[in-house]
């Protein structure tokens, strides 16, 4: 177990990074610690525990903005938002259970890893809701970027750069996010018994309709059977799901329209609020693969490519998969073996216009293979230069994403 610093103030955080820089001591950044098993494993000498930077600093519902310490538990934020009928519209995922930890996700953590749930296709990703931050860079400098308002083009958009940088550029300690009104009503239209290819056509057609679908997923029968939602697990067949949210009369009208649109595939079903919430939480958190130990990939492709990607992979590997983001996000599990099928999967991801990230695998596999899709040489070089511009001594989560980054 590495030793740990827990700075209680920004000055102490700066001092901790100064110490690391002076002695070239790599630091592992943690907030809640729920994502330690994600990414490439690191040989950090010291853990930089940011948990003291917690608590909501400013929440003005009418400004649709919230500012909080980066290590504020997501659960705390969601509870406060719920009281005012608001939400983080990107539906932040919590992979704690998937990765076998009880540690809870933090706001800074989901932003730093840009982890978004099913509503990503309508509302955007975590990065789209990230308005501003304060952080300490690997140069041991306290700096800020962005602001607290949505419309802001003052200077480079470093929020985007920090979102998805996995703590390799700076230690976030305060973040501002956009929040949105929560929908008054949620329903999910279910279509039963489709194979992958036909299901993805349905998802695409639904997204191309004017019915403002806020989530679109497909679960094959074996994975549907693992759901905790009785309608899903007892259906005994594949489930294609379309979520509709908004004000009551609108939700009802759109559900009716969608069911009519896909009437040729059978009568269908509807999930109401509570079951809808449970079902989409399962899709969001990868729960269909929660109970097993297989290697798990998250593959991002153009939505119409999802089923084709899986069909081509099935020719070479024994895999199980489900689709979110209207087919644009494929969750794919297979026996970990020696290398989690990295070569075949990442090659196929690129061939289908996307990229694959290894979400879960034993440490030795994550240490040996490219957890993140390897980049084109020019992009990799630019990535390394950017890392150097924030963290020239490579003390912040070094090697978490790529060798040296």
């Amino acid at each position, binding site marked *: 177990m590495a030793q740990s610093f827990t700075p209680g103030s920004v000055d102490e955080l700066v001092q901790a990074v100064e110490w690391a820089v002076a002695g070239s001591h790599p630091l592992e950044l943690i907030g809640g610690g729920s994502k330690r098993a994600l990414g490439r494993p690191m040989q950090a000498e010291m853990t930089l525990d940011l948990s003291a930077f917690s608590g909501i600093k400013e929440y003005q519902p009418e400004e649709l903005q919230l500012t909080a310490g980066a290590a504020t538990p997501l659960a705390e934020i969601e509870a406060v938002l719920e009281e005012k009928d608001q939400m983080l519209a990107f539906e932040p995922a919590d992979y704690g259970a998937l990765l076998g930890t009880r540690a809870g996700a933090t706001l800074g953590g989901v932003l730093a890893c840009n982890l978004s749930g099913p509503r990503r296709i309508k509302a955007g990703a975590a990065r789209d809701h990230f308005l501003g931050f304060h952080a300490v860079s690997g140069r041991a400098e306290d700096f800020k970027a962005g602001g607290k308002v949505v419309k802001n083009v003052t200077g480079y958009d470093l929020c985007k750069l920090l979102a998805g940088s996995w703590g390799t550029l700076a230690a976030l300690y305060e973040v501002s996010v956009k929040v949105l009104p929560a929908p008054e009503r949620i329903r999910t239209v279910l279509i039963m018994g489709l194979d992958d290819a036909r299901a993805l056509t349905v998802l695409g057609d639904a997204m191309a309709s004017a019915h403002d679908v806020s989530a679109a997923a497909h679960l094959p029968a074996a994975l549907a059977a693992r759901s905790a939602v009785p309608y899903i697990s007892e259906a005994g067949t594949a489930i294609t799901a379309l979520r509709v949210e908004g004000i009551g009369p609108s939700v009802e009208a759109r559900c009716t329209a969608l069911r009519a649109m896909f009437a040729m595939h059978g009568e269908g079903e509807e999930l109401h609020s509570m079951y809808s919430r449970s079902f989409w939480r399962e899709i969001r958190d990868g729960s269909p693969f929660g109970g097993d130990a297989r290697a798990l990939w998250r593959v991002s492709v153009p939505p119409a490519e999802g089923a084709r990607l899986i069909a081509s992979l099935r020719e070479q590997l024994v895999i199980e998969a489900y689709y979110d983001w209207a087919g644009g996000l494929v969750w794919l599990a297979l026996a970990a073996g020696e290398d989690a099928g990295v070569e075949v999967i990442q090659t196929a991801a690129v061939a289908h216009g996307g990229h694959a990230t290894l979400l879960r695998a034993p440490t030795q596999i994550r240490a040996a293979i490219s957890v993140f899709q390897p980049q084109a040489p020019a992009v990799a070089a630019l*990535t390394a230069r*950017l890392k150097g511009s924030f963290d020239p001594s490579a003390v912040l989560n070094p090697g978490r994403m790529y060798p040296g980054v």
Partner: protein
Amino acid sequence: MPPPNQTTIDHRAEIAADLSALIGDAYVIADSASLKAFESDGLSAYRQMPMLVALPSNTAEVSQVLAYCAKRDVKVVPRGAGTGLSGGALPLADGVTLGLGRFNKILEIDYANRSAVVQPGVANLTISQAMDSAGFYYAPDPSSQIACSIGGNVAENSGGVHSLKYGLTTNNLLGVEMVLMDGEIIRLGGKQFDADGYDLLGLITGSEGMLGVITEVTVRILPKPLTVRALLMGFASNDAAGQCVAGIIAAGIIPAGLELMDKPAIHAVEEFCHAGYPLEAEAILICELDGPEVEVEELVGRVSEIAASCGATSARTSESEAERQRFWLGRKSAFSAAGRIAPDYYVMDGTIPRGRLSEVLNRISELSEEYGLAVANIFHAGDGNLHPLILFDANVPGELERTEEMGGEILKLCVAVGGVLTGEHGVGVEKRDLMGEMFSETDLKQQQRVKCAFDSEQLLNPGKVFPTLHRCAELGRMHVHSGEMPFPDLPRF
């Protein structure tokens, strides 16, 4: 601006000849009559003749031109349609202005993946028109959408009246192809939702042409809403209009657009285009609602109730598409209308927290009196983006300077109430020297290091955004004071 490099200027003829060899004689502009067309962008108060203009037609040519300029240490200023309002495309006396106007094709519309691949010189509105019959559109709609190019939109992260619900350019982009200053061609993103690695696509969006030259853009496209209606509401005070905005948001309604105009703006546009705005009102709000018919109908009712409870003095709901267009006509003609009532006008672009609206408008009227310059306010009220138009006469000695000073005061006010210097127009040269109002030297240096990672010699659009130029080598140095074990008095292990 960085001091012009006299050696470069002395070799102008040779550089022109070399560029002609790369992209063709006809596409290198060197005569001063033709160069004049490029001397400013939409911020015409700033003018500078470029040394040369190059108009490449494909990515390979852009790459060759940039590689050549990098080798010769020649500065480059990228330019889209030249409609920008912050001087982002202001030329340099020793620089090549790189025009992307010949990149004017829509390459692919991929309905199955709800995306379109377009060249950067395509006008924003052209994208939506190309897919209109199929029932799709590209959401960001800056006021200049007839003319502004999508490449320029990426460079500036342009917004528009519908960004409240549908986001800015950055929220509607999937990928780009771009050329770095050394000529290297890179692709970021694609048609998938999330890019891998660092979000370089997000970083270059809004980077004002300083990190690379965009040569291809993939945008997300959306199905058109089934119904669109607008409400036109009059209020007896800015305060009441501001309360109505807060009330709508507090009720959990995110309209497609929510625009406010104050009395001077109302009168200016009414005279210009007879949109039918209530002349007795101190402020009007235009609230646009879109979606399924039943939803729009319900929300029209809810917004009308909120308006009434805030003391609206008039309220009309569009009953036809023609009427909706008429409501918007005044708002969309606001800049032209300002041009009619004053010899010159200066558009500001700050963002403030919505709740500070009436306070900021009141302070702007005070400033208006102090400086003796009339102001008309147009406001993307839904997302707090304020566009005061300062009316002036550039022929009156000192008036432009007074206008700029007053504009600076307004932007400082925006920052002081918790807002920002620019919501959608960019920093450019215009707001460059105000950056210190929002950012510390440390903040700005970190941004400049990002610039260095893309362009280590700072040849691409230098002199914009940052008030002080630093050499990359200087920025790269580390100054770490201590290396002592931190806070030893605290338990930590």
